[in-house]
């Protein structure tokens, strides 16, 4: 049974309808959009982390000068330079945020951007201090975006071994108690990354692992590290000597990352991982309580296709439950904002003309008010999937305030709300929404009412 619907494809698997963008005509268009040239990344560039780390090198250098030449004019100049570098990174971070939004606003292959969002959340990581706080977009650009349509094992490895993840989950501090360095420093293991790899990234919280597996994996992961001037490094002096056994399989020391790659590959292919990801994908894209057969088929495909993600998406997009015409999930704040700007066809020059202050006023602060601070989920488990988390009085008030004010602030001239009903909601425009849009006192509130209608809030 094929029940593909171009409008629903944009609403449920993309960022909603766009007056100037043609929706996909068939499932194959959506799938081809995942492997074709990444036009959006070219048009709205975001720096990769490998480029970004040069900023960290230079800031470390200013710190060295300040430390060793205290009280000299050089130290003073270094301090100035540091502040300047931080300010540049802050501005660039906002530009990347704008670019990530513009991709979602203008893409003809919106499923790609949705999957980038899905996997960036699955592998939540961000910098914690200083300039590294701006490294989240570069991390996503480098570790997530190129790997969303390959094999899950490659995506897992790219994310888990990425410097930003290693910092975020304290792996760079973790040393084997029996390692050269651990013996000298009397420091020990940090299990944070090992635990999250099992609980969040692969097997899932109900997966078949024990505390012993967590500890063994933590021992195996020792050595994964990072230096700003070199990028990823493997520190042999951190490695816990001896072999480790995880889920019954033993991994021998090899003096390099071979056993780590091996365990990640095995975890990626584990049946519990298939179950965990099948459920999560169905919940994210279809409904908080997804169709059991859809989940079952996703799980089977993940197992049969050895973690081939494209095969997984193909099953998702060809399953009748995915095309259930009643809208289900509430758009999280960021997706709501992006889809609103997509339906209003916000041009690049309008969004990017804002300086820092206005970007915060129109994007960052409203997102926080709606409950989704930009790139700062509460923990490594990412943003909640359940609708109830987003539909709160505070969250709705934040959405209303933004929907009624921001479009005018960004565009200055708004479309006629009566016409906007059809361009933004398509066939799902109800008489009630038509009535409300026509009855509003002014254009901004008319547009806001359409954006707040259930047909726009859900997908």
């Amino acid at each position, binding site marked *: 049974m094929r029940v593909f619907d171009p409008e629903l494809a944009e609403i449920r698997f993309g960022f909603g309808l766009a007056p100037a963008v043609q929706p996909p005509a068939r499932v194959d268009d959506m799938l081809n959009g995942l492997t074709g040239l990444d036009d959006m990344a070219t048009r709205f560039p975001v720096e990769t982390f490998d480029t970004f780390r040069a900023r960290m090198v230079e800031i470390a250098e200013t710190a060295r000068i300040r430390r060793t030449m205290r009280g000299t004019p050089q130290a003073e100049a270094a301090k100035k330079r540091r502040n300047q570098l931080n300010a540049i990174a802050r501005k660039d971070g906002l530009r990347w945020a704008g670019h990530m939004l513009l991709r979602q606003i203008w893409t003809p292959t919106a499923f790609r951007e949705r999957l980038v969002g899905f996997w960036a959340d699955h592998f939540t990581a961000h910098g914690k201090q200083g300039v590294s706080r701006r490294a989240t977009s570069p991390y996503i650009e480098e570790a997530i975006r190129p790997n969303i349509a390959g094999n899950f094992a490659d995506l897992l490895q790219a994310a888990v071994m990425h410097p930003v993840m290693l910092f975020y989950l304290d792996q760079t501090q973790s040393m084997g108690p029996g390692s050269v360095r651990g013996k000298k420093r009397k420091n020990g293991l940090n299990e*944070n990354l090992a635990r999250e790899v099992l609980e969040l990234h692969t097997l899932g919280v109900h997966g078949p692992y024990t505390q012993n597996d967590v500890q063994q994996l933590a021992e195996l992961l020792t050595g994964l590290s990072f230096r700003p001037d070199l990028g990823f490094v493997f520190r042999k002096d951190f490695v816990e000597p001896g072999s480790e056994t995880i889920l019954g399989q033993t991994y021998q020391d090899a003096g390099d990352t071979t056993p780590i790659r091996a365990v990640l590959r095995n975890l990626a292919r584990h049946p519990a991982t298939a179950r965990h990801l099948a459920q999560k994908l169905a919940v994210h894209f279809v409904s908080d309580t997804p169709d059991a057969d859809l989940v079952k088929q996703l799980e089977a495909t993940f197992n049969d296709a050895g973690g081939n993600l494209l095969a997984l998406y193909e099953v998702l997009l060809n399953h009748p439950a995915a095309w259930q015409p009643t809208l289900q999930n509430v758009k999280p704040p960021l997706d709501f904002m992006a889809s609103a700007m997509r339906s209003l066809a916000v041009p690049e020059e309008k969004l990017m003309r804002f300086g820092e202050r206005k970007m915060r006023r129109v994007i960052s602060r409203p997102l926080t008010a709606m409950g989704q601070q930009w790139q700062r989920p*509460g923990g490594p488990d990412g943003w909640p999937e359940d609708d109830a988390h987003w*539909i709160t009085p505070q969250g709705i008030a934040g959405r209303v305030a933004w929907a009624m004010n921001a479009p005018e602030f960004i565009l200055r001239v708004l479309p006629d709300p009566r016409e906007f009903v059809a361009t933004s909601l398509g066939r799902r425009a109800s008489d*009630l929404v038509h*009535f*409300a849009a026509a009855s509003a006192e002014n254009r901004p509130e008319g547009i806001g009412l359409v954006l707040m209608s*259930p047909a726009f809030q859900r997908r």
Partner: protein
Amino acid sequence: MQLNRRDFLRSSFVGCSLAASPLITPVTFAATPGDHRLVVIILRGGMDGLDLLRPYGDPLLTQLRPTLAGGPDQGAHDLDGFYALHPVLAPLLPMWRAEELGFVQAVSTPYRDKRSHFDGQDLLEAGTETMAGVRDGWLNRMLQAVPSVTAETAYAVGRSDMKLLQGPVEVSNWSPDVSLGLSPVTEQLMTLVTESDPALHAAWQEAQVLAALDAEAQVTDRTARKGAHVKIAEFAAQRLAGEARVAAFSLGGWDTHSGQIRAMNRALGQLAEVLNTLKSGLGQSTWGRTTVVAVTEFGRTARENGTRGTDHGTGGLMILAGGTVRGGRVHGDWPGLQQGDLYQNRDLMPTRDVRAHVAWIMTGLMGINRATLEATVFPGLDMGDDPRLLL
């Protein structure tokens, strides 16, 4: 469906919608978990306890802090011959004299050495030894141990994410600086547009109620342009005077690396306003059953730095207020300021885990037993002896 604008405007959607709001229907509150109120304030940024509560009786203080250590001779308010309160906190002196304001010195979470705000605040709100695998906060875990909790029992107030309240127990969240600012017509049209979606509809109605309460408070109180912190405290007091029993919010501005005098004047001024607003907003009898606890992720360096500020440290200060506390005194052990007394020769040495103090307060207020506190609310904590923070 036939609707016309004039008919619609004559109807009274708003009137019906308020009465139908699920969260303000009285039956929801058949039972409430006791009568005590607990307010937790997270002082974000690393509050300098040695500046707020100055141990001026220790001669080392002025050596370590040439510009920040002023005692009573420089406007600080002597409390007991050893400690002086920061000059800006004069508005809190009546509370101190009434023994409704007290402090616990040299406390910290188990967080050490890296001194990152992000990690420090996460651990403070998680209430655990490490962050590994933690998904909820200690105040939410406390609510799990309290009977008859409803969505109205606990409020996270303000825009910042209150991780200490995150978890399986449903809590409410509202930021009183949200102004809907819609015309009455648009409010009614919103109600109409969301009608087909019960969840969205209910949340919208409740948002209207809360926003209307704020608007009302601002009309009756003519002090123009109040700061967000005062609105937050007013809103918290208003909820706590009603069904709510627990409220948590943040107060920022404590990361005083340079120009600390100015920064602390501002932050402490806000803190004083917040505490006095809570007290007046709650009224005599509810204040008598209220405990306010203010905690921070870490203290700051014992020494002043080169830019008349202080850097991230370890041991910090906990603030207690309310009619339930044994105020008018400084609790906890004083570690001293000598070289050997300082943690890593730079920070005030923590003499007790801040969680132990909070746990003892929970026992006193909510009657939660020690085993639950040590196993669930603050897993792995040894509460030690009762510090007798409450009356």
